[in-house]
Structure formats: C-alpha cells, structure tokens
C-alpha cells in the first residue's frame, strides 16, 4: 500500500470475506500484485525483467526439486546419475536441459534487471535497500549457480570447484586451513560434493526469502519509472492488475519462447563439452573457464599478474570481490539527485561505455589466459573500478542534467503530442496549461 489512493481489498464472494477476516492472504496478494498496487503508468519493457527473474527462479526450483529425485551426490554415482537422467528417466533430458539453461536465463534477465537499475538510478533514495537486497540475491545466485555446476561431477565441475575454493586459499595465514575446511579434504571429493548438494538445495529457498524482502522494500516507495520523477497523484499510476500483469504475462510468453528455442535446439550452446567427461583429479582440462555469467569476474581475477606489496593471487581475489561489494555503496557514490539516465547526458554516455566495458571484460574472461586477453582484461578491469570510484562521483558533481518533466503524466502526454505533430513542426499552439513550464 504505497499510495493513499491504492484501492483496499473488498471481497465480493462470501467465502473470500470469511477467509479475509481470518487470514488476510487474499488482501496481501491484492495489495502486492493485484488491483491494490498502483504502479507508474509509464514503465517501459525494461521493467519486465524483475518479474522474469522471479519466473526463472521458480523454474529453477521446480526443475531442481525434480532432478534431486534422481541425482546421487556421490563421487562414484553423481556423473552416472546425471547420464541416467539424460538417457533413462522419462523426460529427464528436458528437465535437465531446462534446469541448466534456466540458470543461464536467470542470469541474463538478472543482468538486464541490474543494468536497468543502473541506467534509471533505481538504487537512489528511497530505494537503497531494494538495491542492496537485490545485490544480496545476486551474490546468493552466484554461490548457488557455482555449486550447482559442480554437481554433475564432470571435468569442468571438478576443476571449477578446485579453482573457486582456491580463492579462499589466497587469504593470508588462514587461507589454506580455510580452504581445507570448506572442502572437507585437501581436494574436492565426496565431502565437498555432498555439502555442495545440500547447500545447492537450500540456497534457492534463501533467495526466495530475500526476494520477498526485495519486493517488500520495493513496495514501500513503489516502482521507479523511466523519468525518475516521483509519482505525484493518482493520474500518474495504474493498478498492477490488470495493466502490468498483462504486460508481464505477454513479455514472459515471448521470453519463454526464446528459452524453449535454446532448450530444444541449442541446449549445450552455453555449456562446456569438457563437462561430459567424468571428473579426473589427475588431469586439468587445457582450457578451463567458468560458466559465461562469471566471465567478467574471471577476467578481473586474472588481471593481476605480478606481486605488488601483496601477492598477485590475493589482489586478484580481492579485486573480484571488491567489484561486487563496490555496488553496495553505489547509492552513496552517485550523488546526483536526478535518477533517470534519460535526463543525464554525460552519465548516459558513460553508462554505455560501462556496458561495453563489462561485455569486453566478459569476452576477456572467456578466452584462454594468453597475453592479449589478459592485457585487455587488465585495461577493462581498471576502467570498471575507475567508473565507480572516479568517473561517477565526478559526473554527479559537474553534470548539468536536462530539465525534468513536472510529472509522469506530463511526460507521457508530452511524448504523445510530439509524436502526433507533423515532422519539423513544433507541436500545436494549443498547449496544455503547465506544459510549457515542463520544458523550460
């Protein structure tokens, strides 16, 4: 119930009234995703990706529960049980490919969701906690995805587990004992596999719980919007249902279509052939890389090649974790009072440079560790930190933002007016009162 004009739940059916008086669950749903939640009327398609992330979390949990019915978390049985799922279990191939590619799609929609937030300043007051809870979800997703990737116990699984737990070995003094403690051995083995399976089953439910907090925190101020201007009155909003349920539903259908194309026609396109070789603790694959969604971080990890006060290994790990921890401080790094990148020309330019930088980082992280990709990774890593630590504070200090619309409604009507005007001719002289001032 974010705005005073939010409609209260009024059960029409006597059973619902009976239920509502005892357990106001229908009221909760109505106020959260029903007609009782007013949403800015001008949201564009970039605002669909939060719901999509929720959809893919659901797909992952449902298919994961089913896969766990057939999976054996044993060093001897894990690989074969996955092959058994693929070959013998009814529709097992479909469930496993859905789960494996569902992880990739979960990250795709989450990355778009995060960059949406970066562009439109969704992290700014009063939504700092929404942003921070989102980052917590993202960290949990990374842990869950990593542990899930270990479970098939193929070559990439095994060596992924070896390398990622090796991060902890970089910590001075306690590093090595910590790594051994995490693995329950000196190298990944039964103990590591079983605990990864246990946590891989647990963490998605933790994610779901933090998603509830994320949405709860969001629903206090309500969604941001492409203008970044606060909602002023009822004219600026539409009820979530039916307007955004319909839009989300339609968009989800389209994305599921793309998802189905990948699952059915290119199910291994995002995976690694090496993971179809059973884990061999005595031979590392020639080219070992993580899943694509970790590539930018992998490039940052590899960017440190010489010791400088601290060992290069420790620098790499620190920089990799810092690249995400940095984002927790973003609401206080970017001091500009204007939220939306649409009204911040300089910010917008550097936003797109950052997008390109992260894409190049991703490319560099996916390449074998040879001189050129590592060098490119070093430059783009440096730029990544420079963006948040130097460029962004300077922009928010010196940039002159464009004039903001007076209200969401104003901006929407203004847009339509301009579109309907003949090319090269200023919109008609019959200006709506107040419209002129919005363009001062």
């Amino acid at each position: 119930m974010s705005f005073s004009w939010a409609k209260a739940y009024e059960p029409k059916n006597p059973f619902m009234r009976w239920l509502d008086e005892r357990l106001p669950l229908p009221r909760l749903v109505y106020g959260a995703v029903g007609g009782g939640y007013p949403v800015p009327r001008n949201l564009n398609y970039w605002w669909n990706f939060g719901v999509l992330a929720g959809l893919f979390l659901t797909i992952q949990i449902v298919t994961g529960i089913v896969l766990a019915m057939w999976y054996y978390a044993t060093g001897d049985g894990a690989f074969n049980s996955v092959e058994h799922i693929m070959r013998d279990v009814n529709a097992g191939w479909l469930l496993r490919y859905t789960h494996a590619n569902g992880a990739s799609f979960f990250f795709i929609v989450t990355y778009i969701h995060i960059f949406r937030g970066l562009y439109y300043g969704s992290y700014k007051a009063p939504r700092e906690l929404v942003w921070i809870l989102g980052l917590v979800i993202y960290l949990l997703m990374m842990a869950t995805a990593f542990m899930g990737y270990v479970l098939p116990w193929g070559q990439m699984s095994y060596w992924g587990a070896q390398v990622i737990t090796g991060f902890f070995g970089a910590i001075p003094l306690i590093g090595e004992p910590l790594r051994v403690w995490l693995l329950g051995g000196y190298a990944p083995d039964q103990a590591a596999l079983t605990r990864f399976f246990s946590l891989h089953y647990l963490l998605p439910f933790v994610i779901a719980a933090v998603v509830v907090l994320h949405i709860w925190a969001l629903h206090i101020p309500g969604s941001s919007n492409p203008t970044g201007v606060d909602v002023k009155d009822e004219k600026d909003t539409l009820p979530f249902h039916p307007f955004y349920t319909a839009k989300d539903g339609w968009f989800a259908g389209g994305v599921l279509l793309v998802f189905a194309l990948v699952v059915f026609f290119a199910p291994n396109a995002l995976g690694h052939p090496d993971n179809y070789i059973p884990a061999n603790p005595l031979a590392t694959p020639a080219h070992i890389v993580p899943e694509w969604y970790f590539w930018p971080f992998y490039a940052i990890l590899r960017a440190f090649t010489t010791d400088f006060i601290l060992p290069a290994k420790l620098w790499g790990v620190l920089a990799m974790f810092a690249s995400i921890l940095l984002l927790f401080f973003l609401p206080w790094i970017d001091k500009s009072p204007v939220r939306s990148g649409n009204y911040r020309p300089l910010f917008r330019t550097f936003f797109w440079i950052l997008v390109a930088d992260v894409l190049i980082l991703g490319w560099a992280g996916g390449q074998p560790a040879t001189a050129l990709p590592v060098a490119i990774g070093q430059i783009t890593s440096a730029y990544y930190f420079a963006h948040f630590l130097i460029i962004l504070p300077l922009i928010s200090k010196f940039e002159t933002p464009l004039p903001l619309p007076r209200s969401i409604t104003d901006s929407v009507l203004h847009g339509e007016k301009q579109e309907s005007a003949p090319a090269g001719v200023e919109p008609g002289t019959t200006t709506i009162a107040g419209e002129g001032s919005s363009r001062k």
Partner: protein
Amino acid sequence: MADVSVTAGDGVRRRDFLNVAAVSFAGVGAVAAIAPLLVQMSPPADVLALSTVEVDISKIQPGQGIKTVWRKQPVFVRNLTPKEIQEANAVPMSELRDPQTLAQRTKPGKANWLITLGVCTHLGCVPLGIGEGENKGPFGGYFCPCHGSAYDTAARIRSGPAPSNLFVPDYEFTSPTTVRIG
C-alpha cells in the same frame, strides 16, 4: 476506444474474447509444462529393462521351491508333489474367496510348476512357506506372518484378510528346464 461503443450494448466484448483466448492459451501451455514433471515419476527405461528374467528350474525337486526376483519383487517357483496337486484339485470352487482351479494357475501339462509372485495380496509382505522348514500355514501352501493370511497348495487365498490369490505373472517355458518370467 472502439470497444467502448461495442460495450454500449450487452453481450461479450471483443476485449473479453481476447482475454479469455490469451489466458486459455497460457493455461494450455502451463498444463503442458506440468506433463514432464509428472511423467518423470514413472519407471525409467533402465527399470523397464528389468521386466523379464530367465530362471533355471532344473535343480528344483518335487516338494521344493525357490525364491527368485522379477522387477525387484520376489517370485516363488514351486515344484508341487502329486499329493499337493491332489489337495489343490480336491477343493470345491464354492469354498474359495477368489475361485480359480490349479489348471488355470499353471501351464498345460506343467501342473506341478506353480509360479506366483511372493507378495501377499493383503498389504505386500512376503509369505512364508517356500523355504525349507518354513511355516506353510494351515492349508499347506503359504502363510503370511504379517496379518495371518493363509494360502493353499495352489497359492489361493483360504483364510485371513488377503482379498485374492497370489498373483501369477506372465511366463513361458523356453525349454523344459528354463522359464522366462515377464
């Protein structure tokens, strides 16, 4: 705006039709998506591949029986003595809860080979009576220790809570000394 003028009257609006069509389409998709989640629970291909088993019966003397395994369930293969066959044939059909003759429960000319699942039809325990010295029950066939169902020498239910005779699986003699069950 167009549909507003249409709404002016009564009946179904174009918008209603579109709503119903869109939601139904999504509903069909959702139901289709549930199918793999349900079919995965059925026995997988490797379990179905265990559905036949060959048993060598050359070593079973009259009056003896063996326990073998078919689809992870015990199967009793028993070589009846002439006396046991006689006892089974002497029972009037009217006394049986699940009327079947021994001939109906064996292969023609092989009336001494009684092959049944070793699973009590009450609640699935394994009855006693196939092993040497086990309690064969009051009717000389099998006796289920769980709830006291007693079967006769044709493995027909005679007393106790079980509703029907021990199940006779599909089988055939592939040679005089080999049986293929399933």
